[in-house]
Each structure stands twice: as structure tokens, then as C-alpha cells.
């Protein structure tokens, strides 16, 4: 059963005095149950709007498209599954005059969560000592941690986190990532992690979906997406790089120097390089395909689908 399924979903914002803006454009998104699914895209690509649509805060355009959350249609079936969905969308939304504990207790009461779970979650995010301080006195990182605690309060089957590392110090970021990884691997929780931090997605996620201009332009296991966005570049180390560059150039390869080695671009088959150089009496010391990182893949993919100039997230 997919945790999240969007099929041909669109959302258009009408703007006074300006043309309507399509924040989501015929979006298809599938998040299978279990694991951590990254949700990546440049600013204005529609990530947060997608999350708001999923949570019923924003209605999708009428007349087409299907949204399912934990196998229930949204928004009609949302009340039936909301008890299994925890969410932190953008900044944590709490009453500033209330203590951290009281803010969580009020949410727990509204949803029938036992009080003991509040204490568990406060401890989980290391806020027990400051739980009786008012929320407005919290640092940005503490606010974010309280937001994560609130999202975990329901022991959710689906945890939706929108930029959870915002405001956290390096140790906090590491801990949140550990937590997300652990939740994703417990076999019961699906984590949908929206982040602009490519490294975070690469470190934490099993799967990733990349959004550009409100459309999903790539989706799948992180490794596959990396490969699909890879450059096909190959690093070649030989004793005489100048001679090798000339030979490869004559053979039709695009070559550039790289720190005493050569970078041969867009090589469909690296064995061809071996053959060409060996025929000229040059023998390889090293031949290695350059592994693309997510940043390269992301840029490659989104350059194919340039983002709109709007700022709707």
C-alpha cells in the first residue's frame, strides 16, 4: 500500500492583478510505505504546496487528479487517517505564550493521545529540561525540535517533515538525521522528507522525487536517480597526459585536463578509451567513471526542466 499517492494533481493560485500561477502541474507522485522518501526541488517547485494539499490545508484544482494518503482519499478520508500522520510544515506553529509542554499537551488532548507520550516525545528531542519554558523564549533550534516532537506525538505511520533541519546546530542536524534514518528503517514508519539540502537527502533517503515547476521530473531509488543524472564522465590517468589528450581528441572524445589526469566527457563505453590509447602505445594507470553526486544529478535534471520564476513553494 503506498503511503502517498498523487495522480495528475494540479493546484493553481489566483492572484489579484496578475495571471494565475500553477504551483503544481499535473503532478504524479508515489511514495511507497516504509523507508525515507526525499522530496527535492528548487524554490518555487511546489514541494510545500504538495504537502499542504496532502494535509488538506490547500485544495487541489477541481476536476481531475487523485490524492490518497495511507490509502484514503484526501480530503474526504483525511479524518480517518490523520491519527497516523505526523507533520512539520515549514516553521513549527505553537502558541508563543504557552510552555513547550502545554503546547504538546493541548495537541495530545485534542487527538486523544495519552499524556505519557508527551513526556516521551519531549525526552526524544531532548527538551525535557526546558519543557516548562515558554515557547517564545525558545531558540530557533528548540522550536524546531518541539515541532518534531509534535509530529512524533501520534506515533505516526507517515511522518511528513518539511525542512526539519532549519535552525538546528550541527549536532542537532546529525541527531535529526539519525532519528529520521531510524524511523525509516523500523518497518512501520514512512518518512516523507522535504529538504533543499541535497546532502541531507543523499545521506538519509532511500528514494527521492525531484520536483521542477510543479512536476515530478525524476523519482526512484537515490542511486538510480544519481545514475540517471550522471554525466558519463571518465577520469583517465596515464604517464603522458598531453599525448593521450591529443589521441583521444583525434578519436572524437571531448577531453579536458584534471589535476595531472584527463577528464573524458560523456563516454558511453569506457572500454573504447582503453582500446584507443592502447593502439597508440599508451597504457592506462587508472580509469574511473566519475560518480555523480546528487547535486550534479539534481542540477542536470532540473536544468532539463527549468524552474519557474515564481516564489510559490
Amino acid at each position, binding site marked *: 500500500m503506498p503511503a502517498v499517492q498523487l495522480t495528475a494533481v494540479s493546484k493553481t493560485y489566483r492572484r489579484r492583478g496578475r495571471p494565475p500561477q500553477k504551483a503544481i502541474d499535473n503532478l504524479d507522485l508515489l511514495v511507497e510505505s516504509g523507508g525515507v522518501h526525499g522530496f527535492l526541488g528548487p524554490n518555487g517547485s511546489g514541494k510545500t504546496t504538495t504537502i499542504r494539499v496532502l494535509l488538506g490545508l490547500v485544495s487541489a484544482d477541481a476536476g481531475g487528479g487523485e490524492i490518497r494518503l495511507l490509502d484514503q482519499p484526501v480530503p474526504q478520508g483525511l479524518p480517518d487517517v490523520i491519527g497516523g500522520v505526523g507533520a512539520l510544515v515549514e516553521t513549527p506553529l505553537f502558541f508563543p505564550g504557552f510552555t513547550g509542554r502545554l503546547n504538546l499537551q493541548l495537541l495530545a488532548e485534542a487527538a486523544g493521545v495519552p499524556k505519557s507520550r508527551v513526556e516521551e516525545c519531549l525526552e526524544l528531542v531532548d527538551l525535557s529540561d526546558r519543557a516548562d519554558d515558554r515557547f517564545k523564549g525558545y531558540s530557533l533550534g528548540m522550536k524546531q525540535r518541539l515541532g518534531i516532537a509534535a509530529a512524533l506525538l501520534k*506515533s505516526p505511520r507517515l511522518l511528513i517533515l518539511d525542512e526539519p533541519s532549519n535552525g538546528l546546530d550541527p549536532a542537532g542536524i546529525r541527531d535529526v538525521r539519525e532519528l529520521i534514518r531510524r524511523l525509516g528503517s523500523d518497518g512501520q514508519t514512512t518518512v516523507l522528507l522535504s529538504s533543499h539540502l541535497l546532502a541531507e537527502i543523499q545521506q538519509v533517503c532511500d528514494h527521492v522525487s525531484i520536483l521542477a515547476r510543479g512536476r515530478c521530473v525524476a523519482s526512484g531509488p537515490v542511486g538510480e536517480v544519481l545514475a540517471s543524472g550522471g554525466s558519463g564522465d571518465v577520469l583517465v590517468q596515464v604517464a603522458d597526459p598531453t599525448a593521450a589528450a591529443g589521441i583521444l581528441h583525434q578519436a572524437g572524445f571531448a577531453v579536458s585536463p584534471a589535476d595531472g589526469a584527463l577528464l573524458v566527457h560523456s563516454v558511453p563505453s569506457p572500454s573504447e578509451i582503453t582500446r584507443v590509447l592502447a593502439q597508440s602505445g599508451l597504457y592506462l594507470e587508472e580509469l574511473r567513471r566519475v560518480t555523480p553526486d546528487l547535486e550534479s544529478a539534481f542540477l542536470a535534471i532540473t536544468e532539463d526542466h527549468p524552474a519557474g520564476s515564481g516564489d510559490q513553494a
Partner: protein
Amino acid sequence: MSAVVERSEAGPADPTVRRAGFGSLLRSELHRFRSRRFIQVVLAVAVIGWIVATIIALTQFGNPSDAEIARAEQQISTDVASMHQAWEDCQAHPEQGPPGVAPEDFCGPEPTRDTQRLEWYLDKAPFDFGATGNDGALAFAALSAVVAALVGATWIGAEWSTRSLVALLFWVPRRMQVMAAKLLVLVGAAALIGVVAQAGWLAMSGILRAVEGSDNQLPHGFWSDLLQTQGRGVLLTVIAALLAFGLTNLVRNTGAALGIAFVYLIIVESAVRAMRPHWSPWLLSDNAVGLVKHGGNTIYFYDGIPDSTGFVPQVEYYLGHLQAGVYLGAVTVVVVALGAVLFARRDIH
């Protein structure tokens, strides 16, 4: 946040939440209401205000000596004689009045001893509960309505300004349920404020009677009239709270809502009374008085085209309890329902 990685036992297990009922939400909203600092401050200020008002009232009443009463009676006799002379002169010269108006209408009723009240002639009159009971209930209803309006406005306004209302929707996605819970809590709280305010009036008048009260017997049917006035005062308090809530929910900002209310009460109503006096029966403040005031509210205004002598006839319009209550109720329902429907249908960011 090292605990994050150390405490695996606190991670998700089976979902703790299934589907909470409306009762859970109502309890949570009640808890939230009780915990709101601004509401606590407003109610505390109201209590302090009552104490101060009682102390000031004690200084305004007194038990006059027989000599003071005799002097006052003497002054009343002199004044009544003087007023009676003026009234007789008026009756004798009807041509001085506007054409077509009978002298008895122009000159007013005949002045007698009964038209003058003893306390007007005393520096400190004794407190007369029988004479002031209903007016006091009206005044306390007005004050409790103001307090309840502040509470109603901040109750929903702060939820919008902090966006904690949005956070609640992650837990209770049925928006009308959320709105209904907040409204129910507010209605209960406003009714309590209204009842406590009227009890405050009874307590204040009890203190004033005990310390500086007159020996006058309470008029026949006094308690029945007073309790009815107080009941309508409680109703006005609830209506004020709901109106403020509804308006704030529409504009989604407490300050803006209170600003609109201020502009309406001070500027719009004054402008209407000056420029369109025949619209007065539709003004909220006149209807509020009509709802609560014992015997209803009779509005007098000058309307129509002046005749050749420049005389504009006076119009008398009676606003009864029922009419005022239905009108205020209808306005409240429209404002609250509009805000609730927009909340249920609009995108929330």
C-alpha cells in the same frame, strides 16, 4: 539532542491515535481557553475594576441627617413653585410655541413634587436599590459585553496570528468541528462572564445597601423585573462575544477587528444619528440597549423636512426586547457563519 539517538524505545510503535471524538477536542479547547494569559488578564482587570467601582460608589452615597433632608425638601418646594409658574406662563401664551402643537405638548407635564427626586438635592443621597436596580443591571451588562467582546476577539485572533489554528488542523482536519469547539467554549465562557457580572452587581448593591442604603421598600415586582433584565444582560454578553469572535475570524486579526468595532461604534453610529437619524433603529448599540433595558428602548429623533417655520417633527420609535434580540441574533449568526464558512472553504497557509 543526543537523546534522539540514545532512546530508541521512544520511537514510533503502533499508532497511538485513531480518531479522537469531539469531546476530546472540546476538553482541549477548554484547557487552551483557561491557559490563555491575555484572557486571564482581562478577567483579572474586570475583577479589580469591580472592587474599585464599589469603593468609589461607597463614597458617592451617604445617609443624610434630618436637617439635610429638611433643607433639600425646602429647596424642592421652591424649585417646584418656580417651575410651576413657568409652566403656567407657557400655558397662557400658546402662540409662543410652534404652530399646530398643543400647549400641553409644548409646555410638558405640570411640575409637581413627584417629578423631583430627593437625591438630586442632597450632596450624598442614600443608595436606593429599588430605583437603580435595573439601570445597574444594564450598566453591568454593557461592561460584561465589552469584556466578553475582548475575550471573543482575542480567543480566535491570537490563534490566527500565531497560526496555531493551522497546527490544530494537522490533528483535527474537520475545520467545522474545530470552529464549533471554539464557539462552544466561547459561548460557555461568555455566559459565565455575564452571570458573574450580574452577580457582581447584586453583590455591589448589597454592599451599598448595607452601608449607605435607603429604607425605601422595593417596588412590587422588582425582583422579577431585575432578574429578567439580568438574564437579557447575560444574553447580550454572549452576543457581544460571538460578534467579536466572528468579526475577528473574518479579518483574522484581533487589532483590526477591534479597530473596526471602534470605528463603527464611535464614527459610523454617530454619523448615522446625525445624517440618517431614521436608520437609528438598525444601530447595534440602540438594539443592545433595547434588548437589555427594562421596558425596552424608546428612540427619539428628528426626521423629515422642516416646515415653513423650520420645525422638524420628532419621531418616537420603540425598540422592544424581542425585536432587538432577534435583530442582534441575526447579525451575529450572519457574521459568525460567514467567518466559519470561509474558514472551512479557504486555503490555509
